[in-house]
């Protein structure tokens, strides 16, 4: 640093004295600069090339779709795989990825570089994944359910097709729960069903999962709900619950867990066809169908709803990736997700897991995107807030 400063306060060179820049001299100067610039740029290119190649190392030229018999495993050995996460570091998706990557490394032989690309509620990551090279060296964890609803509604900016992704498997499909504050006076779903006054339920953005859950549940069970959406985040909702401004909200079980364990919140309803192991006393939406007045319709709605939820958080690669690579990655993913050490890690981190294989994912996505027309219209209206 000292040497630099000495050079910075020269006592001599008049080279930077004020120059009168008349137009002509300016042009001449520019001409001179251009000539030597060419020379200098080539010199700097020579010096910078090594640095560039350091960066290039992360970029692999695409493999042509050869169906030769080379060993896929040896292809992956020692390679760097980019893992796109559509949210900022520190969030849930990020955590899953960081917990998983050592195990995926174990079973693929490749290193995983986590790339956080937040924006547009997960859509940016999905767009990037969709457009990434189909050489099998980029995978991504996507917010499956949100992407399906976005596509259903035809959201602007969605540059992907959910059913064209090649799925490696699903990490988790969160159980959605309806929680109420312990001071609200409501202790069970029946009470809410029979509530005489409006039950205020909070939700985040229009079209978001907490909003959709609220609206759909209201529609399916003819609940007397007033849905107040526009809350910034689930934390703000929880604060409002504490203050008594709202009674409760829908959300994922994972994020509600600690408040429920504390006793501050009560779960009255859960999604899913079977009761979650942590919630043995809480009825599921399917169980509640029998009290509905129009059981057939309620069943149709709840089934569609469940199929949406089932998409959960899958891992996928870009469309067009060669079949053998997909196979290999799927197998590795399967092994990783069943590794007892990973299960232990996830438990310690308090993260749930509900594995579905790549094959199963394609079926899940298919049933999520093919609903009977009237139900689809219902969902579209719900997402748009027109219900």
């Amino acid at each position: 640093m000292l040497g630099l400063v000495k050079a910075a306060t020269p006592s001599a060179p008049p080279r930077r004295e004020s120059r009168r820049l008349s137009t002509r001299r300016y042009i001449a100067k520019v001409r001179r600069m251009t000539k030597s610039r060419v020379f200098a740029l080539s010199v700097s290119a020579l010096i910078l090339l090594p640095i560039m190649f350091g960066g290039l190392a992360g970029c692999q030229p695409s493999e042509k779709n050869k169906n030769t018999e080379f060993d896929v495993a040896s292809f992956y050995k020692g390679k760097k795989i980019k893992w796109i996460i559509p949210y900022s570091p520190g969030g849930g998706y990020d955590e899953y990825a960081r917990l998983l990557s050592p195990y995926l490394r174990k079973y693929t032989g490749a290193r995983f570089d986590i790339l956080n690309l937040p924006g547009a509620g997960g859509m940016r990551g999905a767009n990037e994944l969709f457009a990434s090279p189909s050489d099998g060296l980029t995978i991504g964890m996507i917010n499956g359910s949100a992407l399906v609803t976005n596509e259903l509604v035809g959201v602007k900016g969605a540059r992907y097709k959910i059913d064209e992704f090649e799925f490696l498997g699903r990490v988790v499909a969160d159980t959605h729960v309806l929680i109420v504050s312990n001071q609200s006076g409501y202790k069970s779903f029946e009470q809410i069903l029979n509530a005489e006054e409006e039950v205020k339920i909070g939700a985040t953005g229009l079209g978001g999962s907490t909003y959709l859950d609220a609206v759909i549940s209201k529609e399916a069970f003819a609940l007397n709900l007033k849905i107040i959406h526009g809350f910034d985040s689930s934390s703000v909702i929880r604060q409002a619950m504490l203050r008594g401004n709202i009674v409760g909200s829908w959300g994922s079980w994972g994020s509600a867990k600690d408040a429920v364990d504390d006793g501050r919140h009560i779960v009255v309803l859960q999604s899913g066809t079977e009761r979650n192991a942590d919630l043995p006393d809480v009825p599921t939406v399917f169980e509640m169908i029998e009290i509905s007045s129009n059981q057939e319709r309620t069943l149709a709605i709840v089934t569609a709803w469940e199929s949406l939820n089932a998409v959960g958080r899958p891992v996928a690669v870009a469309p067009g990736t060669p079949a053998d690579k997909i196979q290999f990655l799927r197998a590795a993913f399967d092994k990783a997700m069943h590794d007892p050490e990973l299960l232990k890690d996830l438990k310690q981190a308090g993260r749930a897991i509900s594995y579905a294989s790549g094959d199963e994912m394609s079926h899940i996505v298919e049933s999520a995107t093919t609903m009977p027309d009237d139900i689809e219209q219902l969902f579209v209206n719900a997402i748009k807030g027109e219900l």
Partner: protein
Amino acid sequence: MELYFIVVVGLIVAAAFISASSYEFVSARTPIVIMVPLMILIGVQFVRAKKASRSVDVRSVLSTVTKGDNKTFNRAVGFIGWMVLLLALIVVAGHYVGIAALMFILLKFVSKEEMFFSLALSAGVTLVIFMLFELGFDVELHRGAIFKIWAGDAGL
């Protein structure tokens, strides 16, 4: 000078006002509430600026500026040019190439530093940033569109 600024700002706000009036009520409410006093104030400021600028001959200022005789203006525009160039370089050729190249150009040509010094400093800073961000923070800096296209990446 300020007159132009105010006019531009006023135009932008007016455009915003027009587009906001096409929004749904709930979304439009706050922006419009903000813009009404804003427009008034801009108007006030416009009047003030006009009063103050009466003493300056607009045309002569303009001609000085366009002829290239106003050093400050030249350097300012030049700086904007450099920044845009840097951004373009970063997007096209990648972050490292962009910053290294631009630093070098600025140091060597515009600041007239010695060749060796420019090269060394450019390479040095680039290296430090590389180590800090890629190795230290695990943040991958943009690779550059050229490379991506070469690699078959359809996205950016």
